[in-house]
């Protein structure tokens, strides 16, 4: 839930009891005042009657519409007021009445009780409409505050949301995002801190990339010397078996170094920002298979392809090429004589399944840089981490599992 929606929700939850309570209190106060007024009128009326009765005057039972008077002999009572309900045959409904009892002394000196009732029909309506007005005012007030707050928050939080969006779209290899300026101290401080952090990240990223490239380039010249010397060394006639073995070891080590350097550079390049495009996967796989036809023929691998659906996995051309190349080379390199490679594309994924030795392979660690199924193998172990890198860059997922004794490498929407 968004911040603004959440505050609005809390405000509404707060406003609701406020309206109810405010209306109730308003109703109570009005009711009380009205009752006091009515009671006073009843009291005045009673005083008049007491005066009349003490002089032996007669009492009119219905002195005015909605007023009733009754005098009954009895002991002297204290003045008391009460609410009651009287059935009105004319209106055919119960009508609230306010009743007051008063002591009176008749002309003959005997005690009596005067009961004066007054219909509350009109006052009730009045009180109800006043309460309703209070409720209306309160609701209106709450709504106005809510909307004002919402508008204000929207305005105040605008730089925050803009910066949040900038942060979400930030990539260390992309341009520096423009952060929204704000004259709110907290937001200005946050933008400053964020800007500094992003600048640092971009600088670190560039420095690291630069270092990788520089290191790779710097290593190339000494490697060229090493290889050159080795090429000269093997020309010596009558080389003994021992020396030949040593030299071969040096060639292998130099080769490994060359490959690692190339992979490091490629890895640095794969991370570059390019817009993803729709990829013609069958074409790309066929091209790469063509390059691999020699090793495939030597290992007698059977290659099956299954382009069942239009694949929607999008990548930049370079990334797609590196991905396909690494997937296939991995599948061929770690295969076995007479094995198979099965390529499948579905709407959301590209999958390569291959036979091959599975003992000692931990699928979970293979995506890490320099992780190798075979520690003494010729590759530097950067191939699959490139696959992983491409996946991360494009919001896809690369998975490697062993299923039915086969290696299954999938790339696509998780």
């Amino acid at each position, binding site marked *: 839930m968004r911040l603004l929606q959440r505050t609005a929700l809390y405000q509404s939850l707060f406003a609701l009891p406020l309206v109810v309570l405010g209306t109730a209190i308003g109703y109570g106060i009005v009711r009380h005042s009205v009752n006091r007024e009515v009671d006073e009128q009843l009291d005045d009326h009673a005083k008049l009657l007491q005066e009349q009765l003490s002089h032996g005057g007669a009492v009119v039972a219905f002195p005015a519409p909605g007023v009733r008077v009754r005098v009954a002999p009895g002991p002297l009572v204290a003045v008391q007021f009460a609410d009651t309900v009287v059935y009105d045959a004319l209106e055919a409904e119960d009508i609230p009445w306010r009743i007051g009892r008063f002591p009176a002394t008749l002309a003959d000196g005997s005690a009596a009780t005067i009961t004066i009732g007054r219909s509350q029909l009109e006052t009730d309506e009045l009180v109800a409409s006043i309460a309703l007005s209070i409720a209306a005012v309160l609701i209106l007030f709450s709504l106005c505050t809510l909307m004002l707050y919402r508008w204000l928050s929207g305005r105040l939080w605008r730089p925050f949301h803009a910066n949040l969006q900038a942060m979400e779209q930030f990539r260390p290899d992309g341009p520096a995002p423009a952060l929204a300026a704000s004259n709110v101290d907290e937001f200005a401080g946050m933008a400053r801190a964020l800007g500094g952090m992003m600048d640092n990240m971009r600088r670190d990223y560039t420095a690291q990339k630069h270092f990788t490239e520089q290191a790779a380039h710097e290593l190339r010249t000494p490697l060229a010397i090493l290889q050159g010397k080795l090429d000269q060394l093997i020309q010596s006639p009558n080389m003994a078996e021992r020396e030949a073995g040593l030299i071969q070891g040096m060639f292998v080590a*130099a*080769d490994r170094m060359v490959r690692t350097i190339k992979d490091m550079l490629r890895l640095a390049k794969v991370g570059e920002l390019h817009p993803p495009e729709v990829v013609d996967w069958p074409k790309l796989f066929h091209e790469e298979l063509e390059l691999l036809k*020699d*090793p495939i023929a030597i290992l007698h691998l059977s290659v099956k392809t299954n382009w069942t659906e239009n694949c929607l996995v999008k990548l930049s051309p370079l990334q797609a090429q590196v991905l396909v190349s690494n997937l296939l080379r991995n599948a061929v390199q770690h295969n076995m004589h007479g094995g198979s490679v099965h390529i499948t594309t579905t709407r959301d994924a590209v999958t390569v399944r291959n036979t091959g030795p599975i003992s000692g392979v931990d699928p979970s660690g293979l995506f890490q840089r320099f992780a190798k199924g075979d520690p003494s193998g010729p590759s530097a172990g950067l191939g699959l981490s490139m696959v992983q890198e491409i996946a991360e860059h494009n919001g896809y997922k690369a998975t490697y599992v062993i299923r039915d004794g086969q290696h299954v490498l999938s790339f696509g929407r998780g």
Partner: protein
Amino acid sequence: MKVLVIEDEPELRRAIRGYLQEEGHLVESANDFPSALERAHLHAYDAMLVDITLPKGNGLDIVRAVRKANIACGIIIISAKDSVDDKVLGLDLGADDYLPKPFHLPELVARLRALVRRKQAGGQMAITIGNLKVIPEDKRVEVDGKLLDITATEFELLLFLVVNKERVLSRSAILEHVWGDLAERMDRDDFLYAHIKNLRKKLASRGAAELIQTIYGIGYRISDRA
């Protein structure tokens, strides 16, 4: 062939120079920009090997100057930078080839030979060894004048051996040359061995002499000497 090696790294310069001299080439070298430029203008070379990063200048400027002065000479750029941009720029300036470091010296020899072949009028330059004749331009191999049926890969392999005849070629140099990038991840010894075996079989079936020698633990050599 007269070759100028422009390379500031003394050990590498020495290695290239030594290897090419053993090939029978006449090699001169320069270790910085001014001396390289001077030599390039003063002497006539069949080919130049130019490193891009040089003391006191850039190798690409040498390429530019040589082409501007219309000096007929093959140019191969040897660079520690292996980027498409550098390559395109170098070739645009008039270089004939671009060889990223590190490279195997037999690869350099093969590139030099190819360069000279391209420069020769008509380009007909067959390489003969024993009763075997390799015609690079037509991708043809003849044994005693008769065409030998050979795959493209086998041809590449044989040509690489032949242009470096009498030299021992390491397995990694051969793999790198024939399979390039692919060799990176595919260097199984049996992979190369299988191709050599097929090639030998085809040559033997046509009565070619046993020319391809195995140098134990190292690689192969083609030679018509015993």
